């Protein structure tokens, strides 16, 4: 579980190494996985997703997003571990096998590649994109305030120097627009899960309003089952609820956009820990985090499989 011949899943890696491992997975499992380029970042880095599919045309699909905030390294690390887990368990774990017989999974391990590189080379605690803001000395937009869901509302800032700057307009960040375009062109996504850190929370829409989402009861039920599955491994406790009333108002977020655009099963995980290390979670917690998160993800994906609305 810890590593294969070339990649140590219990360590943090550069963008280049993660991309190489995505390529390795696609090469090792050509009938199940493929690496797809969905766009380019502001600094012209490719954005790659892994597509897991057993065939069929435009099957119902699940989107797994990670690393939209670059300093949340456990998110990217959990995502690449999850990629290997999916291909390893297909044909072995009946749940994974049956999920992939009905739906495709798309996994974007590094949704903010420029920011991720910047955390390795310049500032480990960088959160935003690296796009330039004309008229300001400050760089970057918060890519999780940039989606077209009550854009520029509560919980976002119009100050380019703010960590939650929403950008000049919705989808201004090419990293966000690339995902939006891909999902809209595909047209058959039923689930969108965004991995963040930290705080140990499992949340669902809305972030931009305290109003309950129409499917709040079902989403809450699914999230509680997922959190229970996650906790079953080593007792890690997650708090469950809508974003706005669980943490704070946040407009322009990815899962609100997904939900408002017909993707009912929209969730945000805030992974380990609760603040002891914060964004600097030691590498020896990558695999325990990924393993328990997988149980939560699988619970959600099974629900999606069984409830293809």
């Amino acid at each position, binding site marked *: 579980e810890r590593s294969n011949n070339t990649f140590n899943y219990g360590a943090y890696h550069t963008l280049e190494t993660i991309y190489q491992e995505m390529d390795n997975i696609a090469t090792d499992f050509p009938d199940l996985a493929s690496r797809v380029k969905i766009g380019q970042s502001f600094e012209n880095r490719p954005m790659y997703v892994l597509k897991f599919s057993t065939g069929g045309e435009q099957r119902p699909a699940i989107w797994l997003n990670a690393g939209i905030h670059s300093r949340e390294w456990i998110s990217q690390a959990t995502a690449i571990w999850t990629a290997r887990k999916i291909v390893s368990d297909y044909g072995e774990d009946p749940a994974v096998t049956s999920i992939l017989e009905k739906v495709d999974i798309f996994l974007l391990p590094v949704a903010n590649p420029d920011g991720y590189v910047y955390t390795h080379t310049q500032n480990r605690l960088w959160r935003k994109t690296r796009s330039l803001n004309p008229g300001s000395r400050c760089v970057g937009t918060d890519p999780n305030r940039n989606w077209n869901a009550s854009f520029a509302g509560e919980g976002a800032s119009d100050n380019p120097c703010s960590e939650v700057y929403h950008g000049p307009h919705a989808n201004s960040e090419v990293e966000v627009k690339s995902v939006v375009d891909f999902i809209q062109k595909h047209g058959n996504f039923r689930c969108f899960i965004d991995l963040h850190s930290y705080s140990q929370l499992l949340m669902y829409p809305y972030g931009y309003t305290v109003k309950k989402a129409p499917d709040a009861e079902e989403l809450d039920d699914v999230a509680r089952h997922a959190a229970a599955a996650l906790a079953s491994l080593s007792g890690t406790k997650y708090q469950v609820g809508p974003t706005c009333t669980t943490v704070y108002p946040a407009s322009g977020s990815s899962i609100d956009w997904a939900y408002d655009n017909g993707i009912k099963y929209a969730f945000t995980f805030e992974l380990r820990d609760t*603040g002891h290390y914060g964004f600097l979670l030691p590498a020896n917690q990558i695999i325990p985090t990924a393993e328990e998160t997988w149980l939560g993800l699988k619970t959600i994906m099974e629900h999606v499989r069984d409830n293809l609305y």
Partner: protein
Amino acid sequence: REKFFGDQVFRINVRNGDEVSKLTQLVNSDNFKLNFWSSPSTLGRPVDVLVPSISLQPVKSFLKSQGLEYSVTIDDLQALLDNEDEEMQYNEGQ
């Protein structure tokens, strides 16, 4: 790569709207060069903030003057970053 010698992370307890308002002064202050790891909310959630070494004393004074409780969750940020770098280098070597 930017260094964080002497920088610390504070956890500030926020129990009500009044304390959120007090903390918002800190959020809106450019003087201290703070980096909020979590945003103040009215939900009673603690707020984590990275305080540069140069701002430690003034921020402590501010919190004390406003009656805001806090604790230090990371007292040597650079040490954590150094550990992380060493682990990555070791792994690459492996």
